[in-house]
């Protein structure tokens, strides 16, 4: 058996780098999930997930590109290896079977993969539908029927999550509609207007809700002050400054 060439060592080194990156980004995701309370915002979770998937992609590319090399490589200890002190590493390197835990993971991944395959093909998702159309491929009669069966249920479920019609969302109504800042000069009635109008206002309401959510997020730090501002829609600022009151209390005169 010959020693690996410089080129081969470089390839191994590259794979190692990619694996290190993958473990690092996984570690940072885990730690951010564990340590931050409340959970990190979805945008940061998503960016971390995309980083991880990129890392996975590059690892798997590397593995498949260098498949020939990796399958032919054999690890064996050279006489200089400190077998006494580094025994666990040695065992890890020399084992021919996967770790039982890892074997579990692999089995689960395989099962998920084989489960997903057929299920995706049976339910035509909208994206697949678009793909099919763009490929100018007509759906079969059975597929169409399936799609029709699936769509109304799904649409209904989506619709049930919202309270349609009216000028206010459920959330706003629970907070009390008088507290909603519409930004409109006219008074909104809390019932259904004409179709066009309500549609327009639904959009408006959507915006309002966004606004309020924004304020809530900001107020996480500032807390109570914001609550007071909400509970008292017309706060009255004192007219006489504190200093003048104190002056009056001291000298009996407002000067």
């Amino acid at each position: 058996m010959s020693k690996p060439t410089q080129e081969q060592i470089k390839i191994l080194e590259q794979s190692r780098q990619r694996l290190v990156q993958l473990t690092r980004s996984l570690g940072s995701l885990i730690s951010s999930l564990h340590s931050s309370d409340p959970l990190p915002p979805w945008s940061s979770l998503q960016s971390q997930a995309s980083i991880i998937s990129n890392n996975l992609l590059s690892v798997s590319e590397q593995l498949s590109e260098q498949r020939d090399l990796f399958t032919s490589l054999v690890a064996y200890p050279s006489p200089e290896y400190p077998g006494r002190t580094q025994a666990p590493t040695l065992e890890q390197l020399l084992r021919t079977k996967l770790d039982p835990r890892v074997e579990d993971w692999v089995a689960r991944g395989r099962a998920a993969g084989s489960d997903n395959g057929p299920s995706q093909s049976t339910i035509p998702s909208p994206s697949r539908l678009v793909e099919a159309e763009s490929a100018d491929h007509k759906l079969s009669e059975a597929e169409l029927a399936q799609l029709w069966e699936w769509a109304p249920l799904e649409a209904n479920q989506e619709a049930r999550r919202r309270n349609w019609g009216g000028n206010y969302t459920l959330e706003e109504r629970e907070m009390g509609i008088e507290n909603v800042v519409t930004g409109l000069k006219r008074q909104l009635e809390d019932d259904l207007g004409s179709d066009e109008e309500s549609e327009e206002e639904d959009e408006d309401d959507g915006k309002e809700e966004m606004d309020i959510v924004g304020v809530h997020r900001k107020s996480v730090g500032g807390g109570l002050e914001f609550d007071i501002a909400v509970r008292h829609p017309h706060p009255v600022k004192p007219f006489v400054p504190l200093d003048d009151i104190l002056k009056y209390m001291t000298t009996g005169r407002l000067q």
Partner: protein
Amino acid sequence: MHEVLLFASVPAHQHYELLQQLAGLTAMQPRHCLERRLIFKAYRKPGLMAGRTGASQDIQSGDLQRLNKMLNGSMYYTQVVGPVTEKDFGAAIDSDMHMDGTDEKPEAYRYDYEHQPWRLEFRDIPEAGTRSAVTSRQMSSSSLPSGDVMPVMSAWGYNFVNEHVVEGDLFVHNEIVIFLQRVLQYPTDQEPSQPRQQMPPLKDMMPLEKSGSYVLQASITVQDGSNQETMKLASQHLFGLREQLKSVIRLEQADRLSLDTRAK
């Protein structure tokens, strides 16, 4: 004695909530207080301290100047405070009833000015140049004879300036006295020359601050103001309270000149 203080302005809409919050914080019900506060101002007794002109000798003038400065420089506004009750407002005067000689309503409550207890409260101008973010000033209180304070005060060289009523609720939190107060003015416009013998009904009293806002005063009285350690400890306790109330109200140091009690 010294006192260290922090103040905050409390808007009217926040008053009730703050009462509840303070009751929770201090674990006590508020003690409602009504106080008459008479403001007196020291005046220079004409001719009393005038230095001898003419034949004065040079050796004495230094001493005389110092004495003059001491006596004339330390003139202050001072307050005479008398606790009253809600029943005292709008009640008939005792002496009036005697003059009428009619006792048709013997059970009717009367405001007895002749037996009104008073205490003299002296407050110095807050100390200048302290690095600490609290107001600290020298203070002392002593009780006065009940009844008419005018003879006593004018004998000491004080003129009556004005009077007002302070209404508020008192809390005690450890050694911090928290007083949520507002100033009520008497309904008449013209300034009286002496304290009132009779008080108008409480509902006729007008808050100085028309929007109905209150002033929160948190204070700690320190027996020995020259002891830096205790003064520092007192300020720290006030800062602790400020932190606790931070989300509700902003307690801060008062403007030194607004608490200036020196008579000019």
